[in-house]
């Protein structure tokens, strides 16, 4: 295990087996505070399973994962205090207003009424939903809902943000807004961000480092620009295709 302060996420030989399926097959990586790390891969590669293990939702079959030195299995409650997890298909409580939802989620973090108000105001700013925060969530569009959820994930300025496809299903305008916010928060508050994405453009823009993952294994890891140079490719999609075909 590395130094707690210099390593935000440390994953070592992680394996997760569902019945006969080896969803995650011995992956290892580390993420530093303030760094945005992307897990890139096709459907079924094991990205979501890895993120869920780190979010303390699933238990690894073998291997270990630590968040700022806390074991995600044995110190799950400590881990939950410092992470924020945004699932890929996350929803919100349709009968609550946007503001009530943010207040509900913030109430588990805030230690006073004043702190709660500050967190919610921060979320209101991130989401950019303005007066619509007073409306019930069931009236929101998909994009508005995702912005609300991203705001919920970042409003508490977690030490580690685990974002599964943060811009999935969003139109260009909403996606640009979300990416900008994620980058801003990682830099401004030294948040370690672990995200998964299909969108190579997004990955190039956001990530400091990426890992290309396929069939539960990390094939290559590195800085997006360096990887492009290394493989003499014009974009990450080409890199990905080359790496996958080399391994198949």
């Amino acid at each position, binding site marked *: 295990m590395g130094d707690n302060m210099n390593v935000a996420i440390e994953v070592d030989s992680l394996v997760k087996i569902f019945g006969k399926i080896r969803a995650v097959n011995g992956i290892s990586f580390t993420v530093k505070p303030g760094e945005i790390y992307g897990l890139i891969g096709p*459907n079924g590669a094991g990205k979501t399973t890895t993120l869920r293990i780190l979010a303390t939702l699933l238990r690894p079959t073998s291997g270990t994962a630590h968040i700022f030195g806390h074991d995600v299995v044995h110190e799950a409650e400590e881990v939950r205090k410092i992470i924020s997890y945004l699932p890929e298909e996350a929803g919100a409580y349709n009968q609550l207003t946007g503001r009530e939802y943010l207040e509900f989620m913030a109430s*588990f973090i805030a230690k006073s009424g004043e702190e709660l108000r500050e967190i919610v105001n921060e979320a209101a700013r991130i989401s950019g939903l303005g007066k619509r925060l007073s409306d019930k969530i069931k009236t929101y569009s998909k994009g508005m809902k995702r912005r609300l959820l991203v705001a919920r994930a970042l409003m508490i300025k977690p030490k580690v943000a685990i974002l599964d496809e943060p811009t999935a299903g969003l139109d260009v305008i909403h996606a640009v807004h979300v990416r900008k916010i994620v980058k801003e928060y990682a830099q401004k508050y030294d948040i370690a961000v672990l995200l998964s994405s299909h969108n190579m453009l997004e990955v190039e823009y956001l990530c400091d480092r990426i890992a290309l993952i396929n069939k539960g294994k990390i094939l290559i890891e590195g800085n997006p620009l360096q990887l492009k140079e290394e493989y003499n490719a014009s974009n990450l999609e080409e890199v990905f295709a080359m790496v996958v075909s080399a391994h198949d």
Partner: protein
Amino acid sequence: MTNALLNIVKKEIKEIVRDPRLFLGMILVPLIMFPVMGLGIRSMIESSAKQEQITNIAVLNLDRGELAEQMFKNPDLIAVFEQNNISIVYLNDLGISSEEESVRYLTENESIAALLIIPENFSECIYNQTPATIQVYIVLKSAGFEGFAGSTRVNVVVGTIRQLLVNYLIMKMDPNANPTFVTNPVVSYPVTVYKGKEIRGVPPEAITGLMFSQAFMLPFAVMFLLLIAVQFAAISVASEKEQKTLESLLTLPVKRTTILIGKLTGSIIISIVGAVGYMLGFNFYMSSIIGMTEELPISVEELAELGLMIPTEGYLLLGATVFLSLLACLSITVVIAAFAEDVRSAQALLSFVFLPTVILGMMSIFMIMGGVGKEYLMVLLLIPFTNPMIAGLQILSGDYFSVILGIVAMAAETAIFIYVAAWFYSSEKVLVARLRFGKKTVEREMEVEEVLSS
């Protein structure tokens, strides 16, 4: 923990109260359904009873003697007509002299409610002390209370005619006799002896009526409370999956047991409010129908002593048993509901578990009240769903020992079920558990599809 719990409970209540499907279907409709039905029936009864309109009854007198004619001129019978807003139409005065004509008159005149045909041999029969037959035609205009009230008025007329004839015959046999006394020479004064105690002035039917109303109302109330609580808890869990909020909720810095207890508490609070309102409405409905307003000449304490009303300590025991059963049922529910993908499948899944139990419970109550199946009492007291239904009956009968045994069993079972639920919610099973039907064995599918699509 307290704040987190409070936040979860508040959220749960808000979601239920604001969801029109839940609020209308499970709270508002049951709450107002019975009072509305009760008010409707009450107003129908009252309006038919208070009808100012006169009921027209046609009479065809074919009597060859003079008895029938004398009878219809009798001041007592005329007084009965007036008291009951009855107007007699003498068909003989209208030139009608046959049965066929009189029946045609009845069918052609909507204002006529009934027709009495006094036979030719009426006087002869009475003089010879042979029962005479008066044909009574009643037009049933509706199947409602109006038709019922019309029929009642005709029966009043026929009954009065009968009484007048009795009086006539008595007077004929002995001019010094008092017909009122002769027809009612004995007055009974009911004294019901129950459990060695005399209840004066109360007939046994009143006591059994009270017992039955308690014996039915209690289990019914408890069953309703459990059913709606179970529904709310199932919806609470399944809607987290349906709305895809469960994963975010489970990664919050709050103990899983707090989330679990918050969900249970929210369901319990809403259910209690719903059940109380529902039972008030039901009680109102029942009292509207059977007029349960008649008071017995005996105090509540005395009724409790006789096991006809639940005494204070009985309510405490009942409260404990209902609470523990509720927790046990809800703990089972939140685990079962976690296997469902959405609200609808959670409700379907639960019906497999609770429907047989409801049927078993209701059957048991009928059996026990019928005096059979008492050997199954302890078994029923061990099942969380049937326990409070049976416990209510046991408290009424004063069998506190088996109730306390049931409470001990419920406490143990509740502890086990809550432990299982807490373990379930602390593990990844709450997310990955699925039930697949249509196979010989029900198996848990480990989210393979989701893994493949991630």
